[in-house]
Structure formats: structure tokens, C-alpha cells
């Protein structure tokens, strides 16, 4: 069991109350969090990454406690070592593809220079076949290429888990199939466990060794 969580959080948005109450245990290396939009899938992912603070509950990953409301434990997102890919990728618009991918390897207060080459960054650029775009800005490349940059940026830091928020939703069908295969190859080679959010049955078929259904903030049995 690489991930175990049981959390609660009350949210208010646009005058509407929403109660997130999710308990799940990931027993398989590849898990799909499946459900309609507004079910609380993204909120659950954010809580795991430390971007949303639950009011109650615990989150444990590989035996390490990331969050425990009772014991007052809350690891900041910087220390959770989680590779997170946002739905619209959240690439840094002012940095080149190479600088984006290498972002997490540089902990200093200044961005790396454009020409700076780091072995691990170059390798991931090649793996995802985006090395020819290394000096481009995110606005200058296509949607599929952006998704690869976001994946490479998350993987280069050697995370202990990969969280993907609807990674293929913004892409057309043919590209989706290709990128799913690329992701599967990477997962096979690295062995990093995956938690993926989707409402596409095709994602469930490919990555759903274990499927957790979410609706209205709760796990459906």
C-alpha cells in the first residue's frame, strides 16, 4: 500500500457548500480516480500534494506521514517529493522548455541561465522527444508537447509518486493514445506509482489496475 488517506474538508465556493470526505488506500501501483467533474477529484489530489489543507484526517505515503491533523503533522509541499502535473500543465511562461524541466533541480533564488545543461534534464528531454524544443517558450509549442514538458519537469526530480490531473483531457484523440503509451513506458521503466484523475474510460482501461470512484466528495463503494 503506497498511499493511504482519510481526509475531510468543508469548502465554500460561490455560496455553495461542498464536503470532501475521502478515504482510500492505493494497493496497486497504478490507480485511477474516476468520476464526474465536481466530484472532488482535483481537491483530493491537491490535499495529497500539500496544496490543500484538510480539516481532519491523515495522509500516509510509503509509510511516511505527510499529514496528520490529530498529531499536528503537516509536511509542506516542498518536502513531499510528489510529481504533480496540473490539468493545464502550469508551465512557467517566462522560462524555456529546458529551464522548465530543470526547475526543480535548482533550489537557488535565481533561475538557471538559458544555456545551462544538466545531464538529467537532457535525458528527459530526449525520452519525451522534446530536445529540439529545449530553447522554445511554452507559448511556442503545441498542447501535446506542453504535456510532455510538464511530465518531464515532474519526473526529473525523482518523485516518490506521480499525480496527474486529467493529463489527456486537453488533447485530441490520436495524440491521447500516443501519450498514454509514452506514459506507460515511463512508468514501466521507472517504477514510480501513479494516481491519475480522469473521467475517460480509456484511461481506466489503460491505467486502472485499481479504480476508485468519486461522486459528490465521497468514495462510492
Amino acid at each position, binding site marked *: 500500500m503506497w498511499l493511504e488517506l482519510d481526509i475531510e474538508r468543508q469548502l465554500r465556493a460561490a455560496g455553495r457548500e461542498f464536503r470532501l470526505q475521502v478515504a482510500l488506500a492505493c494497493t496497486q501501483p497504478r490507480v485511477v480516480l474516476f468520476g464526474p467533474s465536481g466530484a472532488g477529484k482535483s481537491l483530493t489530489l491537491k490535499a495529497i*500534494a*500539500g*496544496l490543500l489543507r484538510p480539516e481532519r484526517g491523515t495522509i500516509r505515503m510509503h509509510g511516511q506521514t505527510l499529514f496528520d491533523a490529530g498529531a499536528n503533522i503537516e509536511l*509542506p*509541499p*516542498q*518536502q*513531499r*517529493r*510528489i*510529481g*504533480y502535473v*496540473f490539468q*493545464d500543465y*502550469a508551465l*512557467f*511562461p*517566462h*522560462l*524555456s522548455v529546458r*529551464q522548465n524541466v530543470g*526547475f*526543480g533541480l*535548482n*533550489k*537557488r*533564488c*535565481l*533561475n538557471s541561465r*538559458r544555456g545551462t545543461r544538466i545531464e538529467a534534464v537532457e535525458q528527459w528531454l530526449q525520452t519525451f522527444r522534446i530536445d529540439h524544443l529545449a530553447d522554445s*517558450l511554452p507559448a511556442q509549442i503545441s498542447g501535446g508537447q506542453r504535456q510532455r514538458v510538464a511530465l518531464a*519537469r*515532474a519526473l526529473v*526530480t525523482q518523485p516518490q509518486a506521480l499525480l496527474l490531473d486529467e493529463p489527456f483531457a486537453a488533447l485530441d484523440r490520436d495524440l491521447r493514445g500516443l501519450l498514454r503509451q509514452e506514459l506507460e513506458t515511463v512508468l514501466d521503466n521507472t517504477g514510480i506509482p501513479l494516481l491519475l484523475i480522469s473521467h475517460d474510460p480509456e484511461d481506466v482501461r489503460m491505467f486502472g489496475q485499481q479504480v476508485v470512484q468519486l461522486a459528490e466528495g465521497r468514495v462510492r463503494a
Partner: protein
Amino acid sequence: MLDLDWSALWLSLKVAGWATAINLVLGVALGALLARRRFPGRELLDTVFTLPLVLPPTVLGYYLLVLVGRNGPLGAWLQDSFGINLVFTWQAAVIAAAVASFPLVFKPARAAFEGVDRQLEQAARTLGVSEVALFFRVSLPLAWRGILAGLLLAFARAMGEFGATIMVAGSIPGQTQTLSIAIYEAVQAGNDGRANVLVLVSSLVCIAVLLLAARLAGRSGGSRHDVA
């Protein structure tokens, strides 16, 4: 007739430069703080920081005099601890100019930081980059354009500061008599020739600053490569 008083121009540039440097640090830091942190009294603080924009400069000057004057809390402390008296010094003119132009940096800085996509900062956090580092590597570069425009306007405003400056720094030629105060003194003394020259110099400097602002804005608008 052409006894151009360079000392007044030089002093104005020095005072405005220091005031802008202070506001670069304080205005950007407080703008970022109010854009990103929620705390009670946040909007009240925003109002207080914006006040110098609408208060009569003489009121600002009076407040400063009460604060840093010999009997003021800050003034008495400086006098007792370090033997420093700020009133009627060029440093007092810097404080007056900094306070008067502060909202012109703070307001655009806050708006610029609020315009930065929070998700980019969250992405930086998940990549293990500290809060301080992500401020300098993500938030600040993306907000920089808006901040720069504010800084140049603040510099021009600091150059022209008059009311608060004359109250806390006075009008000592060569020491605290800035360009705008020198113009006032020249007109009062009926020295029209000197007034004309000083007015012309003052106008030219302001036009130069505005042209520079337009050029910088135009360049960073055309390409965002420099920002990194």
C-alpha cells in the same frame, strides 16, 4: 541670467533615486504580501498605504514632522540613541519623497502579483522550491512589468515632491533645496530668469523619465525573453 543651479537638479535626482530604491523594496514586499496573504485588516492596511496619494502633501509633511521631529517618538529615539537629527536634512527629503510616492509603487505591485497565476506558484512548491526562491524565480519575474511602470511614475512623482519636503527638510540652498523648491523660491524672490531655467530643466527631466518608461514598457511588451 543663465546661472543654472545644478546643485538643485542633482539633489532632486539623488532624493528621487533614494526614495525610489526604498519603495522598490518596501512597495514590492508589501504589494506581494497583501496580494498573497489573507489576514484581518488587510484592506484597511491597503487604504492606509494608498492614503499618501490623496492626502494633501502638507498633511503628510505634518505627520512626518510629528513622527521624526525632535519631540516625535522616532525622532527622539534617533536623537538619543545615535545623535541623529533628521529634520532639515536631505535624508528627510528622501523620507518625504518616499512616502509621497509609495502608493505609485505599492498599488501596481499588488495588482501585478494578484495577476500571477497561483497555480504556477503551487507548481513550484511541488517541485521542491522554497517560498523565497519561488518569489524571485516565478512571482517577481511575472509581475515585473507592472512593477517597473509603477517605479518610473514614482520616480517622477518623487522628483516633483514639494509640500511634505518643505515641511520636514526646509529650503536650504545646496543642502535641502530641491528643484521644485528652488523654483518656488525663485518666483517668490522675483527672479524670473532663474525660475524659467529651472522650470525648463524640471520639465525636460520629467519628459525624459516618461519617454524612458514608454520605451521600457514597449520593449518588454514586444518580447518576454528578457524577463527570465
